[in-house]
C-alpha cells in the first residue's frame, strides 16, 4: 500500500485525510514542519499533503526542505485561501498541485491517486533487459530479445540524452509509458520533474488549461490563477500520452511550445517561456488524421523527428516465454505464492500461440490471475481464460458479437450478462470489454439520433470529429440510411 504523509496543524484534516484515503494509502500525520521532516527522514512516502501555513514554518520553506530531501516526491499544497500566492509559487517550483480547503473527499482521493501514480512513474526505475534473469531488480523490467525490441532498446539509448522531442507509437498495452520513463530516467533531465498528461482523458478546454494554466476569470469557474504543466515542468520532461486526441486549438499551442518554448496561460496576455522536453505517445494513425484535416501536419513533423515504434506482442511471440518467466516470478513474490513451481509445457504452448490483442499488459494480467487462481504448484491450462484455451484468433473488440446477436449488442441491455460471462470465463480484460460494449452502444445511439451526421454526433458526445471517425472505424459502424454494425464484425 502506498504511504502518504499529511502535514497540517488541524486535527480535523488529519482525520479527514486518514478516513478518505484509507482505501488507497496508509496515512501518517504530522502537526508541524519539524515533525513532518522527521517522519520523511525515517520513512518512505509516495505523496505529501502540505498545509500552506504551519506553526513553525511557512509552506514554501517546508516545500524547499522536502525537495532537498526527495526531488521526486509529489507535494500537494492545501490552502484555505484559494488565491494563495504561495501555492502558485510552489506550483511554479514544481509542486504537484494544490487543493482549496474545505477539502472534499472525492477530489482529495482523486488527486492523491494521481500523485501516487506520478510518484511511481517518475521514481520506479525502468531496467532494460534481453534476459529476465535479473536479480535484485526492484523496479520495472523492460524485457525482449526479439529483433524489434532490440531496435527499441537501441533507440532509447540513442535518443535519451538528446534534447529532442520523441514520438512513441504502438498499440495499447505495448509499453509506451515504460519507454517514456526509460527516456526520462536516462536523460540529462533525470533529476528534474517528469509529469504525465493523458490528452484523451480531459475535455478540450480542460486539457488546454491543464497544459498551459489559466488566469483568474479566464472562464466560468476559473476562480484563481492556475499553473499549467508546461510551466510546472520547466527544466523537466512532459509525457503527453494519447497526443492524437487533441483539439486543433490545443495542437496549435503545443506546436508553438515545440517551436519557440513560449506560450500564454488561457485568458492571459503575458508570454511565458519554458524549457520542457516533450515525449509524446499515440496509437492513432496521425498521418491519416493529417490527410483528413484532423491533425496539424506541422505538429506531426515536429513531434516525429525521432519516432520509436513498439511492436505488438503477436509480432514478437519469441518474447512471450521470456515475459512469462518474468511476470510469473514477480506475481509469485508479490502475491505470496512461494510454493508455485512454474507453468506446464501445454500452458506455455497455449500462451505462446495466443494473439494477445491487449499485448504485454494483457499477458501480465493473465499471469497474475492464473497465479491467484492456481491451487497446484504448476499452472495448468485449466486455469487459463477461455479465450486462450479456445485459441480464438478474433480481435477483442468483436468478442461481444461472438455471444450476443448484433441486435442484442446494440440495445445496451446486455451489459450485466456480458460482465457475468467474462467473470465466469475468468477473463482478465473485463474492464476494457465492458467499456467497449458501452462505448459502441453510446456511439450507435447518438449517431442514430443525428441520422448519421458526424459533426452533430461529435458535438453531442463532446469529442472531436477525428476521434469519432476513429471509433466508427474501430467498431465498423456502417452509416447508411440507418446506423448499424457490419454483420461480419
Amino acid at each position, binding site marked *: 500500500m502506498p*504511504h502518504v504523509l499529511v502535514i497540517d*496543524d*488541524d*486535527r*480535523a*484534516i*488529519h*482525520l*479527514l485525510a*486518514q*478516513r*478518505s484515503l484509507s482505501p488507497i494509502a*496508509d*496515512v*501518517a*500525520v*504530522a502537526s508541524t514542519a519539524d*515533525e513532518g521532516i522527521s*517522519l520523511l527522514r*525515517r*520513512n518512505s512516502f509516495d505523496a505529501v499533503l502540505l*498545509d500552506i*501555513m504551519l506553526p513553525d514554518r511557512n509552506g514554501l520553506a517546508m516545500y524547499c526542505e522536502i525537495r532537498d530531501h526527495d526531488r521526486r516526491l509529489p507535494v500537494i499544497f492545501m490552502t*484555505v*485561501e484559494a488565491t494563495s500566492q504561495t501555492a502558485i509559487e510552489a506550483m511554479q517550483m514544481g509542486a504537484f498541485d494544490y487543493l482549496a*480547503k*474545505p*477539502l*472534499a*473527499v*472525492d477530489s482529495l482521493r482523486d488527486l492523491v491517486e494521481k500523485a501516487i501514480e506520478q510518484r511511481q512513474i517518475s521514481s520506479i526505475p525502468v531496467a532494460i533487459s534481453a534476459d529476465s534473469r535479473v536479480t535484485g531488480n526492484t523496479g520495472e523490467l523492460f524485457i525482449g530479445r526479439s529483433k524489434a525490441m532490440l531496435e527499441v532498446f537501441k533507440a532509447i539509448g540513442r535518443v535519451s540524452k538528446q534534447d529532442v522531442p520523441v514520438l512513441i507509437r504502438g498499440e495499447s498495452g505495448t509499453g509506451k509509458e515504460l519507454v517514456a520513463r526509460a527516456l526520462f530516467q536516462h536523460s540529462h533531465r533525470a533529476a528534474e520533474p517528469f509529469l504525465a498528461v493523458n490528452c484523451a482523458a480531459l475535455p478540450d478546454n480542460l486539457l488546454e488549461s491543464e497544459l498551459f494554466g489559466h488566469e483568474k476569470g479566464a472562464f466560468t469557474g476559473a476562480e484563481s490563477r492556475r499553473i499549467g504543466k508546461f510551466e510546472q515542468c520547466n527544466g523537466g520532461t512532459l509525457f503527453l500520452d494519447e497526443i492524437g486526441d487533441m483539439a486543433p486549438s490545443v495542437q496549435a499551442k503545443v506546436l508553438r511550445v515545440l517551436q519557440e518554448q513560449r506560450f500564454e496561460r488561457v485568458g492571459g496576455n503575458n508570454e511565458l517561456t519554458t524549457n520542457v522536453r516533450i515525449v509524446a505517445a499515440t496509437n492513432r494513425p496521425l498521418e491519416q488524421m493529417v490527410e483528413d484535416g484532423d491533425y496539424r501536419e506541422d505538429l506531426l513533423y515536429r513531434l516525429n523527428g525521432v519516432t520509436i515504434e513498439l511492436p505488438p506482442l503477436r509480432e514478437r511471440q519469441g518474447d512471450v516465454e521470456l515475459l512469462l518467466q518474468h511476470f510469473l516470478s514477480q506475481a509469485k513474490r508479490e502475491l505470496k505464492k512461494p510454493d508455485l513451481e512454474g507453468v506446464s509445457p501445454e500452458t506455455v504452448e497455449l500462451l505462446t500461440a495466443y494473439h494477445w490483442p491487449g499485448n504485454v499488459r494483457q499477458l501480465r494480467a493473465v499471469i497474475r490471475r492464473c497465479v491467484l487462481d492456481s491451487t497446484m504448484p504448476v499452472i495448468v491450462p485449466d486455469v487459463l481464460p477461455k479465450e486462450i484455451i479456445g485459441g480464438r484468433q478474433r480481435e477483442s473488440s468483436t468478442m461481444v458479437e461472438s455471444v450476443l446477436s448484433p441486435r442484442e449488442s446494440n440495445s445496451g441491455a446486455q451489459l450485466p450478462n456480458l460482465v457475468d460471462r467474462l467473470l465466469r470465463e475468468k477473463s482478465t480484460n473485463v474492464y476494457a470489454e465492458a467499456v467497449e460494449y458501452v462505448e459502441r452502444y453510446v456511439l450507435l445511439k447518438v449517431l442514430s439520433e443525428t441520422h448519421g451526421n458526424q459533426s452533430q454526433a461529435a458535438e453531442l458526445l463532446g469529442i472531436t470529429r477525428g476521434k469519432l471517425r476513429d471509433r466508427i472505424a474501430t467498431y465498423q459502424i456502417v452509416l447508411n440510411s440507418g446506423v448499424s454494425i457490419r454483420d461480419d464484425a
Partner: protein
Amino acid sequence: MIAKPASTRIEAAVVTPEQRERFAPALNRVAGDVELLVSIAALVSEDAPEVFTSLQSQLSKRALSEVAALGHQLKGMLSTFETDGPVIILQELIHSARAGDQAEAERVLRRCNKELGDLIDEIKRLGDSSPS
C-alpha cells in the same frame, strides 16, 4: 513506526433532519459520510473555541501577525462546515491584520463575533450527535 491520528470514529451517529439540512454542503463534501462529519465536528468543537479566544486576546494586545495566523487557522477549521457568512468575513480580518490595520481588524471582528460564536455552537451540537 508511523504516527496515526487519534481514533475518533463515532458509531451510528444520529443527526437531526435540521442538522442534515443545515450542513448539507459539508455532508456533500464528505461524500455523505455522517459519521465522519460528526467526528470532525467533535474535534473542531474541542479546538475552535480555544483558537477563537486566543484570536480575540491577541487582537486586544495588538499582536496582528498572531491574529492573522489564528484567523487563518480558525477559517480552516470552520470552513469544513460553513463557507459563507462569518467564514468569509474572517478572510477580511486576516487581510486587515496582515495589512497592520488594527482599527479595521477590530471593526471586522465585531461584525462577525456573534456569528462565529453561533457557528462554533452549532458545530458543537453536531459533534455531540452520538447515540449516547
